[in-house]
């Protein structure tokens, strides 16, 4: 049976700021009771093509990830799929596999596109192989956590 809302954190915690999506996911999980009973919280890690099978289960999906949109380190930006399409952004989910819009093409063929997909991207500073965030992300973290909670609360009510 199709569930209502999925919040999916993406990224690799072994690559410094790339793990931000997973940390934000865990923060939101702590506020589970204040959100909605219908939400699934999913650690999607480095999902790539597997994202097809995660997205197809939901009507509404929020994706949290590190995205290089040439912004200020620690900046949070919100994208819709239409915005991704219109701005012709190439958003690669991993180097092995297709970009995000390609995942959508497959979902379209399956007839299982969620009604709403929102992508929350955080501009990373450092994605080298190490555990722990850059100073910029660490400084921005409390603000990012509050902002993302507020954004999602406002969108699911």
């Amino acid at each position, binding site marked *: 049976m199709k569930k209502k809302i999925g919040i999916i954190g*993406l*990224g*690799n*915690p*072994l*690559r410094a700021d*790339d793990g931000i999506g997973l940390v934000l996911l865990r923060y939101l999980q702590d506020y589970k009771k204040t959100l909605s009973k219908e939400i699934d919280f999913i*650690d*999607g*890690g*480095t*999902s*790539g*093509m*597997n994202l*097809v*099978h*995660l997205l197809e289960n939901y009507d509404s999906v929020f994706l949290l*990830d*590190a*995205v*290089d*949109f*040439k912004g200020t380190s620690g900046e949070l930006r919100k994208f819709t799929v239409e915005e991704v399409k219109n*701005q*012709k*952004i*190439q*958003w*690669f*989910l*991993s*180097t*092995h*596999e*297709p970009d995000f819009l*390609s995942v959508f*093409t*497959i979902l379209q*063929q*399956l007839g299982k596109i969620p009604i709403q997909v929102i992508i929350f*991207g955080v501009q*990373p500073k450092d*994605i*080298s*192989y*190490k*555990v722990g965030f850059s100073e910029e992300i660490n400084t921005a973290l409390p603000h990012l956590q509050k902002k993302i909670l507020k954004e999602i609360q406002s969108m699911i009510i």
Partner: protein
Amino acid sequence: MSKDFSIHVEHLTRVEGHGNITLDVKKGKIEKIQWSVVEAPRFFEAMLRGQHYNELRPITSRICGICSIGHSLASVKATEDALGVKITSQTAALRRLAIHAENMQSHILHIGYLVAPDLFGAGSVFSMLGKHTDTVLKIVKLHRLANEMSDLICGRTIHPIRLVVGGFSMYPAEKQLIQLKKRLIEAQELTKDLASVILSVADRLPAFTRETEYIGLTSDEEYALYDGDIASTDTGRHPSNREYKEVMQEYLVPHSTAKYAKHTRESYMVGALARFNLNSKQLHPIAQEIASLFKLKAINYNPFMNTIAQLVEFSHNVEDSISLIDTIVELGIKQEKPVKPVKKAGRGVGVVEVPRGILVHDYTLNSQGYCTKANCIIPTNQNHANIQKDMEKLVPEIINRPEKEIELTLEMLVRAYDPCISCSTHYLDVSFL
């Protein structure tokens, strides 16, 4: 033949990570052929040092988004070896199911999304939609099943959480396993359908051969994936998995950031074709039938047939999973607690077969249970030298063909190995076009 041309494929597509192909030809003479890896070093071993043994598995499960079950199993096996943990037969059976699930996930991804476009003359799997929608949908269905099987056994589609030192932290219900078995039976039919479709375009796989050494696990009991002895098609079984360095001799080359490896020859190959060449007689009969369709027999020296060996293994994974479920359900799932360590310190080696080949984790733990030394031998690193040697033989054989065809053939060669160069790259590089 007196042409001048250069082929430089930077950041080859449809492979994991960054690898370059360089070919320079002057007056028909080959001046340079080079497969180089330009990915930054990863330092996973350094991340493991100083960690408690309970943390090693969760960290290594993040090394790769595709082989996260394999890294987890190599990790718990190494830790259990170091601490004298003997797992139960139920744990061994469930771990075998987990490794089948990962092999299925990864193989169908490679066959369907990465190689099929070459065989169908399409740029990507998405270009196949329309003309070959049915095939793509079958691939998606098989991929979904493999994902859900991983989720059921390991608690997650990727980056498993239930695989722990000494056993499992949670178990699937018998009812769920019975349901999974029904779907696996259906999947075997889909696999046969897919094999027929691939067979119809298999003549696009280059008929290239080069004798080399194949290395993988082997076992008297089964087609070795979870357990076995390190073996070579040249030298047979190695007496001790703990002395893996005698077989997997890693070395550095100036043009690559990844390590290379050799044993008795200049290079060797690991992965599905290596396993097939070592253990094909132990494959399930249905898998052997698929191999026969493609005239795949051991020893096969064509690296392009690695993709077909993956298809054969996929069928074996499905059949063996059905048998394992029957056994587990017959005995009944027991809510066993993970087996506790009997030693506090020691060195342990865990060896498993992951989709791309043999994987080794080697840990030394101190008396407090913290890791003081770690070594991981990744399958793709073992294949780099073999890719290079294949290119050196292949290029002179195809030098008179059009440049585009040479380029595509070299790309197909690298993709046949299903390399996972970065082994955990996920960073999203967004460019505004």
